């Protein structure tokens, strides 16, 4: 049985109140950021390198704690989260990176199954869920292959499958298409958008303006650690409207 902190149906999954993150005195990676992300919303996080995109994502999945301010993620205050409570939060937040972070010596199936193993999912149940997930990203036939025998796009699809197999409430993607050519970029982005239409809240950090224009989602532009622009979605997403 999964234990989860109950959040009210309309409660935003991510809320930030005057959040700052500083690694050195007087120098802010993120400065006085206040933000509310609605359930099922799709957000593009953009800005130049060093603008604070990755730091913002790291604060949401509790890789970092804020130097100032408060962050509520799925009803939990990240600033006060003990080390023992972080894993429980991360099981509800899927993360995808530019460099895929797959284990080369494990098969595709084993890589995806990791997210289910950590919660003790029975092997048979885990296998069928992994198969279904791999099928949804079109890689079920490669499940016994190893990551290095796959193309970059395929590896990112595996990483995405691993992030989504546990049905997370939030999906974070840090430059997920940074290593891919334009055709594969669209392929991956379509899969991420598909996850969002099923109700998952998605935040994607990207440099790629063509993607932002193509999908017409809400855009947060960071500059020097602050939110310089918050552009609403051209067409509100289904989840965000609820």
């Amino acid at each position: 049985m999964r234990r989860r902190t109950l959040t009210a149906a309309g409660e935003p999954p991510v809320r930030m109140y005057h959040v700052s993150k500083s690694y050195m005195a007087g120098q802010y990676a993120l400065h006085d950021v206040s933000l509310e992300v609605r359930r099922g919303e799709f957000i593009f996080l953009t800005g130049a390198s060093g603008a604070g995109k990755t730091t913002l994502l790291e604060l949401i999945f509790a890789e970092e704690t804020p130097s100032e301010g408060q962050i509520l993620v799925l009803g939990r205050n990240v600033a006060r989260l003990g080390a023992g409570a972080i894993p429980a939060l991360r099981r509800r937040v899927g993360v995808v990176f530019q460099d895929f972070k797959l284990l080369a010596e494990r098969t595709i199936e084993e890589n995806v199954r990791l997210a289910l193993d950590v919660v003790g999912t029975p092997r048979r149940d885990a296998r069928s869920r992994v198969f279904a997930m791999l099928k949804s990203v079109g890689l079920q036939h490669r499940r016994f292959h190893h990551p290095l025998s796959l193309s970059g796009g395929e590896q990112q699809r595996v990483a995405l499958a691993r992030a989504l197999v546990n049905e997370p409430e939030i999906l974070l993607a840090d430059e997920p298409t940074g290593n891919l050519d334009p055709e594969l970029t669209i392929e991956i982005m379509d899969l991420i958008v598909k996850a969002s239409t099923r109700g998952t809240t998605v935040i994607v950090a990207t440099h790629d303006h063509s993607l932002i224009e193509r999908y017409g989602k809400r855009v947060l532009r960071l500059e020097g650690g602050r939110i310089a622009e918050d552009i609403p979605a051209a067409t509100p997403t289904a989840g965000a409207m609820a």
Partner: protein
Amino acid sequence: MSRVLNLIAIAIANSVRGIRGATTTSLMAVLTISIVLVLVGSASLLVDNMTGILDEFGAELQLVAYLENDVSKQAQRELVEHVSAAPGVDRVEFVSKDEALVRFEELAGGAELLAGLDENPLPASLEIHLRPEARNADAIAILDAALDGLPGIDELAHGQEWIEGYGQAVSMVRAGALVLSMVLGLAALLIVANTIRLALYARRDELEILALVGASRTFVRVPFMMEGIFQGLLGGLFALLLIYGAFELALPQVRIGLELVLGRADLHFFSTAESISLVVLGAGLGLLGAITALVGGRT
């Protein structure tokens, strides 16, 4: 419950995967534990056998109270009872004048030496055997004081130097073994911890990904602890085999040497319980090494 069983099955699978994936590092850990346990085990076996030999000598330690010539049989019986109740006394054996003469003749190889004498010059005596805990100089001094001046006792004889030497030898051997075991144990712990730390470093990518997908500390740590236990068990078994082999190989030569010097050589290997303890000690060492590495590495 089934979730817990699944987590245990996954932890076992992960630890097997860890060992298979880092065979060289695992072998290093097994070998390190083996070497240390061979040293600790050999020292312990040596001390055990030395203590055994010393204890056998200790059992022969005795005081002799020579009696005056005119002590009546009733007084002799009372003396035996009295001395038996003294502190540190295990048992008392009465040796009559006649028995003393027989022993002397056996020792001297005939009766010629005393043939010219009209009467038996040897006194009756009490052979006082000591309890193991009283085989030291302090206890003997207390006993000495308790028997001093008892009517009927002419002289009390004991090998004080021998007794002190025996006590010191036993203490030194035991203290030496304890210090050696502690030093070797600590060295083993650090080496095993470092070996496991190397394994952790080699698998840092996996640990990072596990943390990302929400693995608890226990989920990450338990397979490493299982690896430590498994490596320790193997190391312990290997050490036991090596010590047994060396013991069997060296036994004939050592036995001959000891018989020549001491006139006896009752040597023994570990009992079953001691053998199991050595293997369990290996497992404990492996587990402790893993915990040290995990805590030190803040995993």
